[in-house]
């Protein structure tokens, strides 16, 4: 299956948690609880964000899930995890254990697209 998409650059793929179609948002890395607490003060902004977190744990991203974050990308975890369970109930797109293509990275503050159309594999693109 081709991963090409016009106007976008393929960054990598991971496990798709929710078959939620394609969603686009602004990439925002969050690595500490303090960063998350700061986001809680701007909950309307959160709805536009795709959060990038190192781990695949549910409680760490709890406020973002409640605020209706547009999507979550993690570098660890599996769809059977707590985050997977909760995200499915919220219908929030989550791609877990993202493996980046060689030499690629997620552009902080840039627009990324999560392709969550497949039942198992989720793909991440950066807007070019």
């Amino acid at each position: 299956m081709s991963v090409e998409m016009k106007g976008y650059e393929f960054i990598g793929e991971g496990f798709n948690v929710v078959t939620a179609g394609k969603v686009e948002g602004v990439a925002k890395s969050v690595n500490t609880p303090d960063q998350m607490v700061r986001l809680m003060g701007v909950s309307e902004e959160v709805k536009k964000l795709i959060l990038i977190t190192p781990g695949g744990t549910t409680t760490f991203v709890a406020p973002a899930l409640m605020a209706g974050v547009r999507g979550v990308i993690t570098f660890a975890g599996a769809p059977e995890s707590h985050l997977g369970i909760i995200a499915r109930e919220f219908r929030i797109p989550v791609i877990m254990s993202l493996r980046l293509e060689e030499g690629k990275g997620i552009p902080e503050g840039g627009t990324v697209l999560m392709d969550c159309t497949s039942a198992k594999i989720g793909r991440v693109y950066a807007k070019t």
Partner: protein
Amino acid sequence: MGKLEKISVEEANKYLKYGSLHISDTLAMRGSEGYNPLIPRQVYEGWGATLAFFKHPELHEAIADKIGMEGIRELGKVAHREIGTKMNLCHMTCIDWIAISGRAAQLLGGICDPGDWVNNALTILSFWKTVMQGFRKDGRLGGWESGYVSEILDRDVVEAFSSEVEPLDEGKITLFSRFNAATQLLGFLDHFDCRLGLGDTGPYDLGDKLVVVRDAYVNEEVYHWSDACEGLPFCYSFVMTFDKQRMMEDRQKGKLRFFSMYDTGTIFSDPFDHSKYLLRATAYIREKWDTPMSEVRRLEIGDLPHHMSKINEAISKLYRKLAKMSEVEKMIAGGFVYSGYILPILRAAGMYEEACEKYLYWSIPPKNFELVVHIGEMELPQILEFQRKGVSGFGHPPIPLPACQPKTTEKRFDWSYQETDVNETFNTPEDLEKWLNRNTQYYLKCQSGFYGNTVGLIVDEAGQQRLRYVDYYKGNFPPWYTPEEKEKLDMEELARQPARIKWDWDWTTITAQDFPLRVRECIFMFEPQNPLLPFLF
């Protein structure tokens, strides 16, 4: 002499192996979520499990002394008539899992040997077995033995609750799903990212529908951080009915590979998303853990937004509170939450206050600090690897056994499933492997991707008879399949393949150097699985 009737070391070994398989089948594929910057779960799990291993035996003994063996079985039956009780699948399973994981943490950390702390293991496993005799009605110790089904509530209770479910149109499904998710999220947060904050049972077969009952414990009063959840009840419960006919059809077509209740009290399906089968649902409130069932209140779906805003507020407050706690504070608190699966048992036995005052429930035994120091010296990748091993079936070697007596009765062990006289000499490991493949009638199917079995062999060794163990598998265990490999794995095909003995592993206590090997008896320890809902298995 205490009133807790202790099992033998041989029987305890059976349950250590059982636990090792059970834990790994449930958790290995899920133990890869990485570090949680909010809650140091991997750190607290190790020492919390050790806390249980060292502390709970005296509590188990005290409970037995107060209420006796039959009283312990009666405790297990609380869950037959109640929703919103922590006397649930996850907590009862953890009596075994978490405590023996404490032993595993000590062993993996090199702090003790398999022959140490034997009485702790015997006490814990004896108590767990006794509770399970009351808790489960199928005579099994875990739902995976019953085809991943745990019908814990009595049928009339399930029928009564399922008669109150509301049909869900698109708007109500969204509202219900979000509320369900929010309560689960708060349950996790209030229980430090641990599954003890939640509990599912079922699926219950009510003819044309399957029912799943879910509890989310959002305000546990004994935890000081729960003041952030003030105004919320102890538990929200959900009763959900699913379209059995459609699920059966999809199962036959291969579109639904499984719909399974794991013994953490978690329903899993493949595909992951099973919301399309949801027909009707309703929610309930249990204000306090001891609120009588007659006072459990039903919520209309229309009431949910009001509760949703309170949950949102609690999540916000609790998150900020946890974010401010120090790592050490969270590690200690997490350890008490993790070992807190005993809390509802103490409450049900009327012994919580006594546990606090006489047995210093909220204190830490000095022995625990060895592991704390050990973990404290590890780097994060080592901690993650330590946890990965813990959830993958490592660290549960059998307790060493002395030589055994010659067989004098038709069945040597009352806990074994089947015993076969062998009286054969095997010249090579391959000969033994062939014999096992020829004579094994069943394997335990683990949905994580393997079929396994373990037997005890009575062998002649230096003029004595000894009980040795042999583990043999179809599939990978461990190392595990990667998720990609697992996706392609055909379990039906795997079932037809021959099993291989797993050498150089705790649970194969013979080596290639022991051949030629004179085997007198083969002890099949485990019963075959007996699915309650065969079409789901």
